[in-house]
């Protein structure tokens, strides 16, 4: 299932709506790192609220996406990790070091706006 990517001002928002296969995630990665420069976005939000499982492949790939997007000149925030998901991720050692996270979409947008303000 393809993940829709919406543009909202300076920010790209990718909302994952159901469990993803590995191929879907790779597809999302390619789409995001292409679009981020094409749309001249300064930030990317990946919303994982709908995921009730996050395996090692998914979290590693999301982390890679965040790093790649940084190299393409934008900030990434991962939002909406469920409490249970968060705790099982930590137990598996998938702590998403140096990736920004926020509670939900609203928080993510607030975080990015603050960052933009600080940089401009």
């Amino acid at each position, binding site marked *: 299932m393809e993940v829709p990517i919406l543009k909202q001002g300076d920010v790209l928002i990718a909302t994952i709506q159901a469990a993803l296969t590995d191929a879907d995630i790779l597809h999302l990665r390619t789409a995001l790192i292409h679009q981020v420069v094409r749309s001249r976005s300064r930030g990317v939000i990946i919303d994982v609220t709908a995921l009730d499982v996050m395996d090692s492949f998914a979290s590693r790939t999301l982390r890679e996406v965040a790093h790649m997007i940084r190299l393409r000149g934008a900030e990434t925030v991962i939002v909406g990790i469920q409490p249970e998901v968060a705790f099982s991720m930590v137990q598996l050692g998938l702590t998403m070091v140096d990736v920004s*996270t926020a*509670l939900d979409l609203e928080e993510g947008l607030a975080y990015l706006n603050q960052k933009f303000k600080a940089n401009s």
Partner: protein
Amino acid sequence: MTQKDGNREIKDVQEDYALGANQAEAISVLLRELVAHLRQNRTQLREEWARRITEAQLLTAMSKDEIFAEATTVYDNYVEALETETFETLQAYARNLSERIIPRGVETHEVVGIVLLLRDVLARSLFAKYRSDFNKLNRILDAYEPAANRIANTVAVGFVQERERVIRQQQEAIRELSTPVLQVRERLLILPIIGVIDPQRARQLPEQLLRGIRTNRAKVVVIDITGVAAMDATVANHLVQTVEASRLLGATVIVTGLSPEIAQTLVKIGVDLGKMNTVGDLQGGIEQAERLLGYKVVPIVGAS
């Protein structure tokens, strides 16, 4: 149990009964005599018992009158249990008594002590009565001892069971209260941890905190462990995991109040605290949290 076993047991019982029928009858005759004796001397024995209780300094939590009132009821129940050889009434009374006296701090040894005292008082009165007839005394004691032991047993077990029920209930209550997640300001939670963190509490901790972060939309959490006396590697790792999981939800965690002992153990067992943001005391933690959230607390000039 299979049908066969059941049949065999019934047969055994019947045989025992046939063998012991005469004996049982003799015992119940003796018990009747015994009960009559105890009824006759009720006032005197009861007083003697109450006196011995006070003398032995048992039930110090209760007043003299209360002891006497309870002693009367226990005495009557005791005699009744001897007479009918059924223990339900006594059991129910023991439970009821325990319910009333446990909150007042009566100890197990006191309850066992008073029942044994009663047993002793009654036995002495029997010695006195049958002093001249040694054979009769022997038979009376044969009848009396097993029943008396069983009564003592029933009361003690009833008391301990009631006590255990109370303990279980309290444990449950403590568990519920043990990890409160409190909001002190918009988007700022504190989680004071007091007492021993056992594995069950350690498991509960992240669960409650993460839920609290989501419902209160918290950005900063201060975990205060001033009240925690000791911490082992498992618990410390749970704490680190809680901090990391909170970060995945977008919240920053500040840990405050690590005691010198805990700091030593954590460094010695090599827990990775690099990811933990620690501040000396709760006040400092809250101040830092306020800075992170952009609050500024200013005293009002002229306020008392």
